[in-house]
């Protein structure tokens, strides 16, 4: 996938996952596996290891689905936590014991490193999930193209460009914050 556009990863899908709906897992995989995989690949530098982490994280998502508490953290924060724990294990080359549901894990140095990377990749991921047109315009502005120039290129009014960019940024910040809980 990774095509722009919103895959449903809202509370209803997470709720369905908790009820044991395997289709919900497949939707969440479509939405979030690129992030988990990319995070593992960047951390471990090895395709096979990154695939292994992705597999373990989503299998664990399924087996531990009853222990996810939406009141405690967002779904994506939970996912990133699981991913960082698995990556940490492989970095230490040690234990592959499963993490107990709801257990509080102490972050190793490697894990806190992957948390910082996770924060960056989450933002890149959310940026890539903005709707295509607003995303294109926001990327231009981030690339230091002025709104006036964008207005000229696209035929939009300057006011429209500004308000679209502003609303994209607000949206990005909200999703990132919800996803990350990390700063």
């Amino acid at each position: 996938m990774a095509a722009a556009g919103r895959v449903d990863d809202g509370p209803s899908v997470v709720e369905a996952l908790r009820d044991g709906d395997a289709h919900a897992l497949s939707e969440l995989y479509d939405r979030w596996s690129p992030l988990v995989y990319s995070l593992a690949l960047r951390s471990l530098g090895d395709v096979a290891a990154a695939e292994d982490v992705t597999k373990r994280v989503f299998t664990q998502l399924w087996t531990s689905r009853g222990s996810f508490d939406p009141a405690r953290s967002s779904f994506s924060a939970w996912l990133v936590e699981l991913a960082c724990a698995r990556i940490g294990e492989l970095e230490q080359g040690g234990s592959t014991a499963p993490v107990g549901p709801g257990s509080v894990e102490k972050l190793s140095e490697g894990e806190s490193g992957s948390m910082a990377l996770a924060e960056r990749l989450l933002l890149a991921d959310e940026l890539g999930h903005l709707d295509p047109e607003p995303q294109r315009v926001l990327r231009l502005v981030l690339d230091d193209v002025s709104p006036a120039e964008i207005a000229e290129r696209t035929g939009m009014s300057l006011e429209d460009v500004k308000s679209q960019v502003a609303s994209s940024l607000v949206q990005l910040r909200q999703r990132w914050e919800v996803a990350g809980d990390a700063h």
Partner: protein
Amino acid sequence: MHTDPELLALLALGEEGGTEADRAHVASCRVCAAELEELRHVVVLAREVADEAISDPDPRVWDAIRSEIRNGTDGRDELSVRTHLRGVGETWARASADASLETDEHGRRVLQVTLDADLPDSGLRQAWLVHRDDPRQRQTLGVLDGRHGLWTVAHAIDLTQFAILDISQQSFGSTEHSGDSIVRGELVPAA
């Protein structure tokens, strides 16, 4: 009245916008200033990560997950438990029940109960899952039909915590546990 988030977003991008009053407010309001700072942080980071590659895993990863889940090799999904429940107190000393919990082909956790007790003609019998460490926490499963009960147990219920199965004598119309437990026992043994 705080500044409109979209105006703060524009300011964070280094664009001009808003009135003099808006800018004065942002400068003097702690909440808006913090929000602006946060948005600036997002802009800085977004500039850095704009070209960061997020790539899809090979399809074989999903295939592996799917087959692992289908085979239930994680062990926890293939619950199969049989339990004998004992009568509670003197009143129900001769009561007992048998319970079985199985995972069916759709992954649903199916709980069946058969109650053996000298039951009154009045009221109903209701089944509960009670928290192992805190008996005040309980979820109701539903009402028995005569001596038999058959329910699916939502996966949201963690059976390692809500591990005690309790069947109570209830009067019609009450939603709370009556306190009159007929049988009780551990459904899922402690790990």
